[in-house]
């Protein structure tokens, strides 16, 4: 009896198998797509990623993109062989919030990482480096991270899992304390970086933090491994103090370089916001002061470019260049004298929010393509997820650039607006209203709301690309201002973290 039952079962199973096999044949075209191995989650051809993020480098600082003074042959090469975005915007005009946003693909306010000097990383979203690590990448870093407070006496606490397995931390070249590996490295060799700086006014090239960061990247690249990698090459330069090694500054004929965008009217116009912290107050620099400032700033970028060249050479020498995607960007800009302002802060002029963005991967992406589309740095995370074949979380606020990179769509169309935010309420004093401000920029207009203030800023970028004339109170622009305010309000509300997902009807 038992054996008869077994036999029946056998026949039944055979029947089922036949059916399954018939179904399988229909699905043959799916081979390799649906049957992906579960072990390494990234695509088989997922590239290495060299992600260079300089600190405080504004948009118009690259030779091939229209700056006739800088000496950036390696960046020029990336431009010619890659895709550059002429309108790339950071989501905050200062370090922590900007870095938090482009490392997570989320607006800084949504993930609660809005301030420099914050007590801790809020752990509200995974860094792309953690996602990649979990999917089989090895991630490394040299230079700064700056996702929470990073003081000499209060060293940065890393996120619980930032995904970096190699971590050569140097928040800034001149920060003391024990956490600065760069200072420690040279101290062990008997070289005192701070003394050199004091003696010469700059640190010579062989000992420069830029050189050291590139050295660390090269060491990492030369490691043998059987999996893809990502390296965050986070130089401190061209961040102030403007102190390039002398020979780089000597290459500039200071008198010949252009002036920043400044008119005497700026002193009054931009001075209206003096009480909104923090940002330098507008002042009139002499022409030679202005030019020297620019030359020093650019000279630091030249040193970065030279080191980028060394890193690319290492990629080539190790046979990894063709399988490496290079991203070049910066966390935010620097006013460098525009409107009499320097450094950065709670302002959203082009010099601050518009940053270089080049993506180089000629093996797969378009070459010598310059896009005029509006792009946000939070678009990088979904782009990387697309390139590596990883799923994109629905919560992500960035929008993948892959269609532009692969030349599949009009390169000049991406987003209808970009946003940038500032909610740094630190260091409040009685005399100053703290800075809560948001920027909403379309191709034509830029609207800046200083929250809690009557006054805001509205620029007609088509007519006034250098942002001299504030149209906030101009009656001819009332309707436009209202429309932009509504759009900005909507965008801000849509970016709110609404908390846990809804499970039931109530």
């Amino acid at each position, binding site marked *: 009896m038992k054996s008869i039952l077994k036999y029946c079962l056998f026949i039944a199973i055979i029947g089922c*198998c036949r059916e*399954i*096999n018939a179904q*399988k044949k229909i699905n*043959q075209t799916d*081979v*390799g797509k649906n*049957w*992906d*191995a*579960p*072990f*390494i989650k990234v695509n*088989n*051809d997922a590239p290495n990623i060299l992600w260079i993020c300089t600190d405080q480098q504004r948009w118009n600082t690259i030779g091939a993109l229209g700056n006739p003074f800088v000496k950036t042959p390696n960046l020029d090469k990336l431009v010619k062989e890659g895709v550059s975005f002429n309108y790339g915007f950071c989501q905050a005009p200062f370090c922590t919030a900007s870095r938090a946003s482009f490392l997570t693909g989320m607006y800084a306010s949504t993930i609660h990482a809005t301030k420099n000097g914050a007590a801790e990383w809020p752990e509200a979203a995974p860094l792309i480096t953690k996602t990649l*690590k979990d999917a089989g990448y090895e991630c490394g870093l040299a230079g700064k991270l700056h996702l929470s407070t990073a003081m000499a006496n209060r060293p940065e606490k890393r996120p619980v*899992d930032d*995904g*970096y*397995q*190699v*971590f050569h931390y140097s928040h800034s070249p001149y920060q003391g304390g024990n956490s600065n590996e760069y200072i420690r490295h040279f101290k062990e060799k008997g070289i005192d970086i701070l003394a050199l700086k004091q003696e010469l006014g700059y640190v010579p090239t062989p000992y420069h933090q830029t050189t050291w960061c590139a050295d660390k990247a090269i060491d990492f690249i030369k*490691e*043998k*491994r*059987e*999996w893809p990698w990502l390296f965050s090459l986070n130089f401190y330069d061209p961040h102030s103090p403007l102190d390039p090694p002398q020979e780089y500054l000597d290459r500039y004929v200071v008198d010949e370089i252009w002036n920043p965008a400044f008119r005497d009217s700026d002193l009054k116009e931009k001075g209206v916001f003096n009480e909104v912290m923090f940002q330098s107050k507008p002042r009139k620099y002499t022409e030679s002061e202005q030019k020297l400032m620019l030359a020093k700033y650019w000279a630091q970028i030249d040193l970065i470019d030279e080191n980028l060249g060394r890193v690319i050479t290492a990629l080539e020498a*190790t*046979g*990894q260049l063709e399988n490496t995607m290079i991203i070049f960007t910066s966390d935010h800009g620097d006013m460098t004298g525009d409107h009499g302002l320097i450094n950065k802060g709670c302002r959203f002029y082009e010099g601050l929010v518009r940053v270089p963005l080049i993506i180089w991967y000629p093996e797969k992406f378009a070459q010598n393509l310059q896009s005029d589309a509006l792009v946000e740095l939070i678009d990088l995370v979904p782009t990387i997820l697309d390139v590596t074949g990883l799923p994109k979380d629905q919560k992500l606020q960035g929008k993948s650039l892959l269609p532009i990179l692969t030349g599949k769509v009009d390169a000049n169309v991406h987003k209808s607006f970009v946003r940038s935010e500032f909610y740094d309420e630190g260091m409040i004093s009685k005399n100053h209203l703290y800075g809560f401000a948001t920027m909403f920029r379309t191709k034509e207009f830029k609207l800046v709301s200083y929250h809690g203030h009557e006054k805001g800023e509205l620029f007609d970028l088509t007519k006034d690309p250098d942002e001299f004339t504030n149209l906030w109170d101009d009656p001819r622009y009332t309707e436009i201002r209202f429309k932009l305010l509504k759009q900005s309000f909507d965008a801000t509300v849509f970016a709110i973290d609404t908390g846990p997902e809804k499970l039931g009807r109530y």
Partner: protein
Amino acid sequence: MFQIILSIFIAILSGPEPERPNILFIVSEDNGPELGCYGAPIKTPNLDALAARGVLFEKAFVPQAGCSQSRASFLTGLYPHQNGQIGLATWKYSMYEQDIPNVTKSLHKAGYTTGIIGKLHVNPEDAFVFDWQPEDVDLRGSNFKRKKLNKYISEATAFMTQSHKPFYLQVNFPDAHEPFLPQVDGVPTRPLNWQNVEALPYMEINDSTLRQQTADYYNCLMRLDKYVGDLLDALEKTGKSKNTIVVYIGDHGADLLRGKRTCYEGGLRIPMIIADGRSNSTSKRDSNMVSTLDLYPTFLSLAGLKIPEYLPGVSLEPSLNGEEGEVRKYLFAEYHTHSNHDPYPQRCVRNERYKLIHNLLPEVENPGFNYTLDHVVQYTENDIRKNADSTIWKAYINMKKPQEFELYDLENDPHEFNNLADASNHLETLELMKSKLLEWQKQTNDPMIDHEIARKVFDAINTTGTREKERTMVPYFDWMYPEKMVWKRP
């Protein structure tokens, strides 16, 4: 054409040397004997054909189930604990001395031209002498992306054709390493999926997840077979096959549950086929236990060289010549670590019937158990509980923190789920196996005979690197090789 004429001239000019055979050594990655000729339910016609004209070793083993550890062993003829390559080269583990003799040095010195395609994966690389390797970087590494597999054949063809002297060519194919790519460049033409296969028997779990993994593992092996076939055709076309010995092995078992990184059969057992083109030896199946440690002595004797006494392996040449080789009664293996995520020192001995695993640190958990589940196989303890019957589930969970000794009766329990170490009727066997293991540890100067050293190395591996295990070198040389005299110079 000119080259051919030139090579003929050179051949004539160099006179009638005793003709030593070429060696074409094919190494695949991460696969046990799951081939048609070993009884697996897949088609591997090319490897089957190789077996049909050579010797198939039914019981072949590696001394440690990890890439670098296994490769350093077959190249030096020494156990990992003897040469120092106790973990992966990619994690900075290394042989402790560059001067340790190896296959490439010996054959090169004896006048062979040595070449390698694919990865070496042993440190220091300078310990090896390769006269040739491809220019293409993709063909110098592990190439888990399986790029340009056709180029393995064209490069091998060029090397074999141009070599005027006898050659040693080691071709390291990337299959069947993870990721288990079901299809690359249309190979295999019809990939299997889970509905077509049962999970590998030694896992003793047969749910759809493990069946899918097995299917994709098989897909890799079918692809491997195709390229092995192409390579053997290429050898044929060079006209040198009649004087070439083809050796094929997998470097260790599959990266599946109870495979790679364990001392179970799924980790240690490999396919080994040797076909001597000079003889028309018909299909022979050798059922003696052999080790990849036997390859170095075999290569030496094939090249007419003396086999130094310090080598623990024996030449397999007698078996190739149709004679009865030396019958090995006990075969040894071990485990130290793989990356820095999974150290767990073990020593292992088996005879025809029994296997003993000595877990040197029974007081600690084996971190590799969960690491393999979480990061490699992506299968949870709950999945095991759900899909395995209770004795199997219990055995799996015991892997996490096994008792000091594991004794298995391979005849009645071929998949090693029933530990007999506490069984009163196996006391004698246990004692016999323990004494054999200890004897071997003494003979081979095993530093971990002192469990304190095992403990130190284990702790150092666990604490080396950052939270996320940066690949810095673990300082194990200081404890394991203080006098650097573990192997004896020839």
